[in-house]
């Protein structure tokens, strides 16, 4: 089953402490100040819930939310 963009952004919001309204598709992780500890936490929760491996090292801080969502969905399809 595909993972929805909403489910992914909900995890980002919960793990980073950011208001979900700020997670617009064109905002970059860097602009949102989502650092390495935040991303490790996001990756952990996504792996845990959706059952695939996500190496935080592969996440470019310049990724937009839309790009991050697409990347996660591609991992899920491959899993």
């Amino acid at each position, binding site marked *: 089953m595909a993972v929805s963009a909403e489910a992914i952004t909900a995890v980002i919001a919960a793990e980073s402490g*950011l208001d979900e309204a700020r997670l617009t598709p064109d905002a970059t992780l860097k602009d949102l100040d989502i650092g390495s*500890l935040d991303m490790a*936490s996001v990756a*952990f*929760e996504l792996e845990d819930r959706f059952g695939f491996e996500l190496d935080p090292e592969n996440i470019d801080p310049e990724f937009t939310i839309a790009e991050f969502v697409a990347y996660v969905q591609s991992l899920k399809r491959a899993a």
Partner: protein
Amino acid sequence: MSCRVVITGMGCISGLGRNLADSWSRLAQGEGAIQSEDGAEPAAAVAPEWLDAALAGRDLRALGKLDPLSAFALASAIEAVEQAGLFGHPVLSERTAILLGCGSGGNTTIDTAYERLYARRAARVHPQTIPSSMISAPASHVGMLLGAHGPTFVLSSACASSAHALGEAMHMIRAGRVEVAIAGGAEACLNPGSRVAWSSLGVLAPDTCRPFSAGRKGLVLGEGAAVLVLESADHAEARGATVLGELAGYGASADAGHITAPDRAGIEAAIRAAHGDAGLAFDEPALISSHGTGTALNDAAEAAALRSVYGDGLDAHTVIATKSAHGHLIGGAGAIEFVIGMKALAAGIAPPVLNYSAPDPACELPLALEPTPVTHRTLVSNSFAFGGLNAVLVGRLAA
């Protein structure tokens, strides 16, 4: 004494309420927060919505994932610092210490990780398990919230942790190391792992907490925090702060005897040292906030120590035991009991010892068994921990 240490802010959260005002209004009416759940020993838990309300509107994002231990400490610190009018004050940056007492670290976080590891055989735990659960996290988190760059740490002495923290913070101000100390303590131990460990020790009451009463069967766990803003009297006066009272004395001792059993001599030594430090005569009628856990041995040892220290003059004092209302906050106990004691002095009402059923000849004390009008201006607040670590604080109403 090099300088007086005054209190300019107080905050607390426990099963009684989300702040001191709510907690006090329940205490003054003789209400308690201890509740029973199916199959488990009773406890006094913080309502989650109180925590949400206390932290609402604060930017806590940089703090990471918060164990309830840190969340309780933050809630109380916010209340105390707001009351003191110190948010954004330049003294926070360089001349303020953060000194909190905790009996243990973030137990819920550790429980969650262990449940994954041992029950679900998961290979990994949440990446923030260490920073969220370390015992020092609450001090770091409060310091981050306030932008405080002075000495910041947690000290641990089991059930006396926050009393030791307040006493040592007082000495930091007296010694001139800082002008302000944000001091108190917290505990979050109502997670399954902690509860079963306390239960296995055989000290939890199956019914309720009945300090100094015949038929008492043990302690009842609580959770929460209390934090005070302590300040040199000169600094408080210079900025025109409202002074709520004074932290006037601190006595500490160690039994160096048994890892769980109390020792009357050690308890007495701490009480006498606190009186000596504060210059408080034993015959000045005081509100005595007992450690009063509700265990058979502790209450008898404390009662014997009080009788020995104060002699026949004891009956001019008034003894309270508020663990009967908020449960045992372990590392946070000394601080919440000191805060409640100061509030009781200011209100002129001793909150009643709850659940008292009948006198115990081993615990003959001048207990407040109903909300009792008092005119005392001095508080003696006792904390006696497992491992024989004793700390007693003396508070005084502002002149």
